[in-house]
Every structure is written in structure tokens, then in C-alpha cells.
């Protein structure tokens, strides 16, 4: 556990807040609170499908409940970063920082997202490098076999 993006919700918590949300949904009246609590758990799930669902619920809240905008933006950024939609995540971070440019919590999140992008970019390069080496090995083997035949 190195940063907030690593954190995973427990299944009991997810189920607890899911139950409340669904009960209210059933009665036809979902409060902002219940929807936010459920979405907050969903974006911390280990399953991308849950995270995507959380993002949808947060977007809905963002459009219907202006008072909670900063909370929704923050967790929209976290949710997107967790499914590796880094550009979307940074877009939400940027929107947040337009309102509160010095917010340390959001600036820290921005650094973590950038760090992940960098790390995963490097992994991509490393894998490409290994492929080149493997290819080089095959060519080398081919050359060796060809020269042996002579």
C-alpha cells in the first residue's frame, strides 16, 4: 500500500452500501448521500466493472448535486486512474485544480497518476526491448544455423 490508488474496499463494505442504495432505488427515492457512499465504495473495488459503475453514479451526482462537486470530481479522478484511464483522470484533476489550485490532496493525486503513467510507460519500453532482444536472438540463431549448414 503506497498510495490511495492502491487501496481496495472490503467486500462487506461494498455490500453494505450497495444494500442501502438498492433499497432506496426500490422505493424510487435515492438520496445523494446513499448514491455517493455506494459510488465511493465502487471506485475502490478491485473489479473494473464495479469501478465503471461507480464512475457513472458519480457523473450523475456531479450533474444533479452541485454542492458536492469537489467530492465527485476527486473520486471521478480516482476511479478513472484505477482503470488506467489516466488522461480522463487528469482531466478531472485539472477541473478540480481550476477551482482550488493549491489543494494538496489533489496535487498529490496528480503526482501519483503521473508516476503510474511513467512507470507503465517504462514497462512498455522494457517489454519492447525484450522483444527486440528475443528477435535478435532468433536472427542470431538463424545465422548460426545457416553458417553451420555450409
Amino acid at each position: 500500500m503506497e498510495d490511495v490508488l492502491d487501496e481496495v474496499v472490503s467486500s462487506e463494505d461494498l455490500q453494505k452500501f450497495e444494500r442501502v442504495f438498492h433499497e432506496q432505488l426500490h422505493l424510487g427515492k435515492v438520496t445523494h448521500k446513499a448514491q455517493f457512499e455506494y459510488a465511493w465504495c465502487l471506485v475502490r473495488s478491485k473489479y473494473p466493472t464495479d469501478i465503471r459503475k461507480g464512475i457513472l453514479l458519480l457523473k450523475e451526482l456531479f450533474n444533479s448535486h452541485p454542492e458536492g462537486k469537489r467530492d465527485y470530481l476527486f473520486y471521478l479522478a480516482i476511479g478513472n486512474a484505477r482503470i488506467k484511464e489516466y488522461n480522463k483522470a487528469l482531466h478531472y484533476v485539472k477541473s478540480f485544480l481550476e477551482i482550488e489550485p493549491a489543494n494538496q490532496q489533489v496535487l498529490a493525486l496528480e503526482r501519483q497518476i503521473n508516476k503510474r503513467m511513467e512507470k507503465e510507460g517504462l514497462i512498455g519500453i522494457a517489454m519492447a526491448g525484450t522483444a527486440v532482444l528475443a528477435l535478435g536472438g532468433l536472427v542470431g540463431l538463424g545465422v548460426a544455423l545457416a553458417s553451420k549448414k555450409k
Partner: protein
Amino acid sequence: MTSGPYNYSYIFKYIIIGDMGVGKSCLLHQFTDKKFMADCPHTIGVEFGTRIIEVAGQKIKLQIWDTAGQERFRAVTRSYYRGAAGALMVYDITRRSTYNHLSSWLTDTRNLTNPSTVIFLIGNKSDLDGQRDVTYEEAKQFADENGLMFVEASAKTGQNVEEAFLETAKKIYQSIQDGRLDLNAAESGVQHKPASPGRPLAAQPPARDNCAC
């Protein structure tokens, strides 16, 4: 932020709790970055910080969860109490209401943590002595009656901030030494050093499924 090798023997989980605006995040930043944030906006949900400290020659990594004080976060932030080895419970010495709510914070902490969790009471904003609304003696008595450790501190000047975090760690470490804290219990809030040296330990292994290696 923190540089150098991640070399530590233990990980302790802390939570910081208390009313809105008492300075929980400022205490965290003073402790992790040695900086005071003048206008600290309200925390969203939870904030996370780490620092490696030393107790009795052992390197210990503190993983600190700073919870939002606003009521609307309360239901979900309660789940962060689970498995905390240390709880820093904060009030503002210039606002009596934040002190009056301590018993409710304490009840939550006792219900949601385990008996070996160390609870440390912090009266923050000790630099504003002129505006004091809660006496030292009164809070000290409350702490004694409830078996809590206690200091008055200032996130602004840094006074006693280091002490609060370190004394909590010492007490936890003591519990491990005495065998009162079971390291194998999942909820103890304490983890052993990772098997391979120099590699940070993930608190939740399932979270690592994003690793492409």
C-alpha cells in the same frame, strides 16, 4: 517526498479522527513534510500519508489515514478504523464543541478498533492560547479517566506534533514486545517486514493485479 531505501521492520497503521476543522490534515502534513499548510481545505474522504520512523533501533513505517471531519463522509470513513494500531483523536483547544464531541469519537473508536489499539488525544492549536476554550487540566483529566495518552500540540509551530506520533508508535511497539498485540491477527494494524529486503510491502495483495509484470 521520502527518499532512500524502504527499509523497515514493521508497518503500523494509524488513523486521525476528530471534528471538522480541528487541524487533522495540518498535523499530518506537519509530521510527514514538516510544513504547515496555512489554509487547508476540507479533506475529501480520506488522505493518506507515510513516514518511516525509528523506535528502539527498529525502523517502522507509519501508514497514516487522515479522515475527513465532515459529517457526510462519516459512514464510509468508519471502515478505515478497522485494523488501526494507533488512533490520533484531535480536538481544537479554541473550540469547545470539538472537545464536547470527543466521547462520541471515542465510542466509535472503541467499537471499531481492537482492545490493543493505542488512542492518543491531541488538543491542537496550542499556539492560540489567547483564544483557549478548553483548559489543559480538564482535557488531561478526560484523557486519564479514559486511559488515553494526551498532549496539546500545534500543527502551526510543530510543537509536540512529532511527540504525539512517536509516543503512539512507542506504545504500540511496547505492546508487541509484551505480547499483548498479536502480530498474526489481521486486525492488529501491524505488519512484519517484507520477506525480500528493500521492497515495499503491499497492504492488500489483491490490489496488485494491475501489475503488468
